[in-house]
């Protein structure tokens, strides 16, 4: 087990280097000069342009910029934005917001998704199962912006329960609505995955044995059926946590949540290489950690899986 974890941690290093290099390179290849764009339609003073570019280190060739960046990164220095702020500050402002939002959505999709999936699986072919099918199909087929718009209109403009956008991004209560929108798609996937898995496993030999042993139904379902059915769901949830953190750009935009998605969108618009790379570094770490945890959870869920 320990050796497995160490091996996985070591494997992260090339993945980490590769992704940061790719992102840095791609940002650099984007057309357009971010410093020139500060002047907009207006006339540019070439001497000032050159001086600012020099100050930001943008006049050096890209590989030199990359080496400098990586050198600083290993010392914990994420660089500065073009507005001369520390990228680390930008990240530490945005990350807590997105962690809150993503965890809310995550809890929501696990609790609701697994429960719905479980009951649909147990009542296969009954009206609850069919209702679940319709509901999940509906959620999967409605694009997030549409769902966000419907929620905004119904709950804010019509019912006036909440304000249309989030006024304070750190307030958990205000983040509930965006979290519902953000988690709804994954909720549908989780419910469907759980249901299928339950339907498959309910006919398995060990369940029949457990029932024959005379175990109470609650225990059969709880410890034997549900636990063994969770492996595909956990696989999905692991990658989904990363997706929720980085992929909330649309939801954060609709509800004006000041999280990672929002900051990333802003940085991409301004072509700020350092900020984009900084966020991607953090997201890569989140992904890697989540996938490691998923692998370890397999062993916990299914005793037949062993890591050496």
């Amino acid at each position: 087990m320990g050796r497995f974890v160490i091996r996985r941690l070591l494997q992260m290093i090339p993945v980490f280097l590769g992704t940061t290099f790719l992102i840095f390179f791609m940002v650099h290849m984007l057309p357009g000069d971010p410093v020139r764009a500060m002047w907009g339609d207006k006339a540019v003073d070439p001497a000032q342009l050159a001086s600012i570019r020099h100050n930001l280190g943008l006049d050096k060739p890209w590989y030199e910029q990359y080496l400098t960046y990586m050198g600083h990164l290993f010392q914990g220095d994420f660089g500065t934005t073009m507005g001369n702020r520390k990228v680390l500050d930008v990240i530490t402002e945005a990350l807590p917001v997105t962690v809150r939002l993503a965890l809310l959505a995550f809890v929501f999709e696990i609790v609701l998704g697994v429960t719905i999936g479980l009951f649909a699986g147990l009542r296969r072919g009954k009206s609850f199962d069919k209702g679940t099918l319709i509901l999940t199909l509906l959620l999967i087929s409605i694009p997030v912006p549409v769902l966000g718009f419907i929620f905004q209109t119904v709950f804010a403009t019509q019912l006036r329960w909440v304000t249309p956008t989030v006024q304070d991004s750190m307030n958990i209560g205000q983040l509930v609505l965006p979290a519902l929108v953000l988690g709804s798609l994954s909720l549908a996937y989780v419910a469907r995955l759980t249901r299928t898995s339950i339907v498959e496993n309910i006919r398995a030999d060990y369940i029949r044995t457990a029932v024959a042993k005379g175990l109470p139904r609650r225990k059969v379902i709880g410890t034997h059926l549900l636990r063994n059915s969770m492996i595909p769901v956990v696989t999905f949830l692991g990658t989904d946590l990363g997706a929720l953190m980085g992929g909330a750009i649309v939801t954060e935009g609709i509800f004006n949540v000041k999280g990672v998605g929002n900051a990333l969108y802003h940085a991409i618009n301004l072509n700020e290489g350092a900020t984009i790379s900084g966020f991607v570094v953090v997201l890569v770490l989140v992904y890697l950690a989540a996938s490691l945890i998923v692998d370890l959870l397999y062993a916990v869920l299914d005793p037949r899986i062993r890591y050496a």
Partner: protein
Amino acid sequence: MRGASQAKWVVAAVAVALAATACSSGGSSGSSGSGAVNAQGVFSYQSAEPQNPLQPANAMENQGGRITMQLFKGLVDFDPTGKPRNQVADKIETTDAQHYTVTLKSGWTFHDGTPVTAQSFVDSWNWSANVKNNQINSDWFKDIAGYTDVHPEKGDPTTDKMSGLKVVDDTHFTIELTGPVSYFQYKLGYVAFAPLPKVFFTDPAKYGQNPIGDGPYKFVSWEHNKAITLASYDKYAGVDKPKNGGIVFRNYTQADAAYKDLVSDSLDVLDQVDPTDLASYKNDLGDRAVDQVQGAIQNISFAMYQPEWQGVDKAKVRQGLSMAIDRDTITKTVLHGSRQPADSWVAPGALGYKAGTCGDFCKFDPAKAKELIQAGGGVPNNKITIVYNADGGHKEWVDAVCNSIRQSTGVDCLGDPKPDFKTARDIITKKQVTSMMRTGWVQDYSVNANYLRDVYGTGASANDAGYSSADFDKLAAQADKATTVDKTADLYQQAETQLAKDMPAIPLWYYKTNSGYSNNVQNVKFDNVGNPVYTDVEVKQK
């Protein structure tokens, strides 16, 4: 029974779908009568994260610019109609438009309590003009004698003081320019010319995050990417004392999110209505909707540097193309009345604006258009493309303009979208456009010279078309040497007639301010560049 239960669920699904669509439009149209006013009330305004620290000469984009303008006041500023008025200056005297003597009013203080003196201005300008201090607006000081010493084209500055600025005493200083600039007083209204307190120079980076100015509002907090909060300054000595307690510049990445907040009274004053809500905003907001012309123009320019667009006859082709565009219909339908058809190269409201300098060439006349294009030898390859940036909401009108040209003249016309503003600018400044490009101009100061010299003068750095006309340049040079601003405006008006003859850029329309405000505020007016008159906004008693 199986069939029946399935049908039940289908009905339920349809009901959900119907309920979802039924709640698509709402909004209230309330009227805003004047109620009791809370002088300490704070209102919120739709904004976005400023790109740079809040230093007077470092705010080129709108977001930082309008916040800086509330924090700092210079010698003069502009009233809501765009006319200059004295603020810190008591008087600015000159006889030759080259040598100026400035007298300051006493009683002005910075937000940290220190007095605003002649030295505050001179230090500020010297610092901002210095190329080493990396201020975006540093070339605003280029008229001042000695500018090239602090801001050489190459290499390091030889000194940190411009020789053209001399402090006489606390309330007097003199400015010497390299030549006469009759509208220099208009330029002084730009926020880059604001004074800076002594403490600023001890740590400019720190005071860019935590600015201390002399304007109607003082800085309270900057929550990055969220909001910037200002509070009214009770010792403000200007003529426009705030009628409210402060402003929260709230950050929105999406304009339609801000609009929804406004409709539900969670946001007080809107910057600009997003394109999707333009059709309905007057209905939603009733008499809280704002619709007025602002000092900005949209053009499409020709790549005059391409050989096939040169030659005397090609001017006729360009005029013909201008006449092939149905500006009235496009502004009414595609743009939902958010623009006003242009009939000159200068937006109304600017000093020296004259209606109709474009004449018949800006009137829609397909028959005449065809005739002119033929007389000029036709459009090269009978095809034009219009380069524009796809991230600015331009696609709809570019396509409409192309349709109009195609239908009325048979010339093939296509939009050529570039992914974003930076990319489009890159192609345009490198002069790689093949036939046409979108160009726009937002005024820096309210004189026609700003719309003309800076855009159409030979070699002017915003001259994207690469236009060069000896006649235009001659008149512009005369105008710049004039000693009164009225004379300058007059001469530039003459220079503008040359543009109608050559048509390097087709004026399309003027921008309008399409905005609105919530039920919580009243007396919201907008100035001629589309900013609300912040100090006049009154917050209603709750």
